[in-house]
């Protein structure tokens, strides 16, 4: 029916304008109806305009909201990424610090702290096979006094390297402090350990350490060894190695004493 409306409108307008219809009783009624119809049309158009602009507003609002949502999502994504990277950086820095806290800065060997941890672990696992060797460079103060601390440090590093090389797979070495090194053996064969330590004492005795000028430095080491006995703790084991070392020093140095 809709496609006929234009034609119908034209017919109504034509009928209203037709001179011969003027004065006809239905003319006035048709004119009033026509006017009413026109008013309804214009109201309808107004309504559509208002409704359209509401729809526009809603679409606009949804667009703004979704843009804001997208922006927040992007921001969240970026924050998470940056935060994760900070955490990774911190974790790495922590690990580096942890590593450094177990290493002696001069010799690069495990330090006393690391050694105590290892000793505790060995003690928890198999205390009966734990042996300790406390190694001290003889008359080290003289080297420092005669050649200076830098050369003294070089000798320390070299002695440390030689101990590590000689002990090899038999045990773990650490710088215990000053010119003292502590080796922990978890090797039940006493003869093998004895041979290793005697060879170590020989090696040090025969080594010519660099002094910075033509003179070469010679030195010796004293070693005190302790072996687990019933009732021992890590502390008493260390103390007995210390005592044995003390005896080695008293007996003229350059020797291994088993406690």
């Amino acid at each position, binding site marked *: 029916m809709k496609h006929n409306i234009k034609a119908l409108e034209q017919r109504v307008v034509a009928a209203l304008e037709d001179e011969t219809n003027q004065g006809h009783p239905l003319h006035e009624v048709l004119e009033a109806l026509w006017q009413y119809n026109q008013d309804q049309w214009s109201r309808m158009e107004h309504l559509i305009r208002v409704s359209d602009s509401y729809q526009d507003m809603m679409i606009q609002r949804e667009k703004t909201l979704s843009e804001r949502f997208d922006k927040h999502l992007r*921001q969240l994504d*970026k*924050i998470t990424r940056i*935060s994760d*990277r*900070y955490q990774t*950086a*911190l974790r790495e820095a922590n690990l580096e610090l942890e590593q450094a806290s177990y290493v002696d800065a001069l010799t690069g060997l495990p330090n006393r702290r690391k050694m105590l941890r290892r000793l505790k672990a060995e003690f928890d696992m198999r205390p009966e096979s734990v042996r300790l060797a406390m190694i001290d460079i003889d008359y080290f103060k003289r080297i420092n006094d005669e050649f200076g601390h830098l050369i003294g440090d070089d000798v320390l590093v070299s002695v440390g390297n030689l101990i590590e090389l000689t002990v090899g797979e038999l045990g773990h070495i650490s710088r215990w402090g000053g010119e003292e090194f502590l080796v922990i053996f978890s090797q039940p064969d006493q003869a093998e350990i004895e041979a290793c330590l005697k060879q170590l004492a020989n090696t040090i005795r025969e080594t010519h350490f660099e002094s910075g000028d033509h003179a070469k430095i010679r030195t010796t080491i004293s070693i005190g060894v302790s072996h687990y006995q019933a009732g021992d703790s890590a502390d008493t084991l260390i103390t007995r190695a210390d005592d044995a070392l003390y005896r080695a020093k008293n007996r003229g140095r350059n020797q291994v004493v088993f406690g």
Partner: protein
Amino acid sequence: MKDLKIVSTQSTPLIETDSHRGVVYMEGDSYPENSFEFYSELVAWVTSYLKDNERPMTVELALLYLNTSSIKVMMDIFDELEEHHQKGRDITVNWRYDVDNERVAELAEEFKEDCSFAFNIIGQE
């Protein structure tokens, strides 16, 4: 306009502002317990500086580690700077880092990503 001078602590950075030169300076680590509260004065200062005048603004940073909420605050500040830069404001960020700590530079790059103003990441010996 009242300038800020907040001394650094182990978990919060040094913060200084200079409204005459249009400079914000921050240095240190940022792990406040409540970042939004800690940074509220700075955020207010930045907003008010940008509202009150048309002069350029420079942010000098020497920040090391930031916790997640500090990252959010910094991103919000950079977003605000970006908005004003889009309207023609002269904005510069100089993020300085120790060349021994490349990670700081990599993270500064992440922040720089969405900024179209001058964002310089400067390594220092």
